[in-house]
């Protein structure tokens, strides 16, 4: 899967980082960065949770076959 954070929406609330620390990193500019591309399957649960809890709805996922 691939994961994207929309910088126009993200405001650095860090919920993504807490849900999937290996995938997201919130840096000094208060923006979340995706660390892995593609994201290995083992992180699916964490990423799905991040998508759900992100207060701004800033995270999108695509599947490899899309």
């Amino acid at each position, binding site marked *: 899967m691939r994961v994207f954070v929309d910088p*126009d*929406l993200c*405001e*650095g609330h*860090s919920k993504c980082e807490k849900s999937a620390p290996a995938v997201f990193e919130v840096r000094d500019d*208060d923006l979340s960065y995706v660390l892995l591309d593609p994201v290995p399957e083992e992180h699916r649960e964490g990423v799905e949770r991040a998508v759900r*809890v992100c*207060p*701004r*709805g800033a995270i999108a996922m695509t599947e490899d076959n899309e």
Partner: protein
Amino acid sequence: MTQLATPLDELNLNRADLFEQGQAHDVFRYLREHQPVHWNREGKRNVGFWNITKYEDVMFISRNPELFISSKDIGSAYPKDESEFDPETDDRGKHLIKMDPPRHVRVRRLVNKGFTPRAVNALEPHIREITNHILDDIEHKERTDFVLDVASQLPLAVICEMMGVPRKDWPYMFQLTNKVLGAADSEYQTDVPDEIRGTPEGAQETARQGMREMRQYFAAQLADRKGERKDDLLSLLVDSEDKGETLTDDEILWFAFLLIVAGNETTRNAISGGLHVLSEHPEQRKKLQDDMSLLPSAVEEILRWVSPVMHMARVATDDVEIRGTRIKKGERVVMWYPSVNRDEDIFADPYTFNITRDPNDHLAFGIGEHFCLGAGFARLELKVMFEELFRRFPDIQVDGEPERLRSNFIGGVKHLPVKLR
């Protein structure tokens, strides 16, 4: 199981007294179980609307801001006759909370720099100082009104300092925000003729007075900053620019209005509600006071429990189905936060106040496009307030019944008598 005194097709949530007496949770529980998407009959002056009481449905609505728009106002009450809007105080589409994408996305980017978690947390020492000044003022007392002397003072000070409102004007700001959001409560209808005091007309006129005066006030402040910049948000907004876009004077004035109102009336009630619920659950309170590192999680539980903002409304821009019920284009949906924050499908033991609840994905700040811009401030204010309060007044006790606000929008407490030691 719960029974309702009113048949479902008569049930009307557009009524402040339902909430004043604190009966709302029985109603919400009943609706979640029997009719989670419920048609609220129209009133004499207001259109009907859908009551939305389940968590997943509020997620769906909030995550689709083009299908469910905010620019047709965000309260449950909406007049059948649009001519009831008064041009001077009609703020639909004028500030963030009543604006839709794509404009909303642009304006939010112009104003959000000072509100990100990092920016807010840098202010912690200052917020602690303000908190201690507030507590100094009650140090010598035995008893006090916790809402007036403590809970309302911190958000007021923080927001006024942020906007650069001089200290002498803070009580005036307090009065105006009460008029805008507490308009339905006759306690705040201080400047209307006796004949309409306590009526819907009295409420409407009170809210309009508050809005007009606040706009005038900030127009003068803005003119002042244009002459000479200061170290405050108002000055920053004048110079704010993102990808070549700037804010107009009108946009700045409306944003100032929104911030003062949204920042004051909500956090105040989370603080008062927090002390109240902790006092009602002495074992949870003891657990917290024995280990204050539990506070961040306790703050989340307070927010879930109190849900200081009770609803936000949207209007559907197309026909859409929610939980098998057809919502027609142009119809209004009202999302009830106190209900979704006790949704049995999401929260284990939702009626248990548990300061170590995990996970706790409450929606007290909404979610998505309009997610509360001030959430970082609210969380920090709550944390610092309870740290300092319990440090200085570890034995503070609620000493009487809270007096609730008459409103179906803000879950408010007007007065809360406490014994300080």
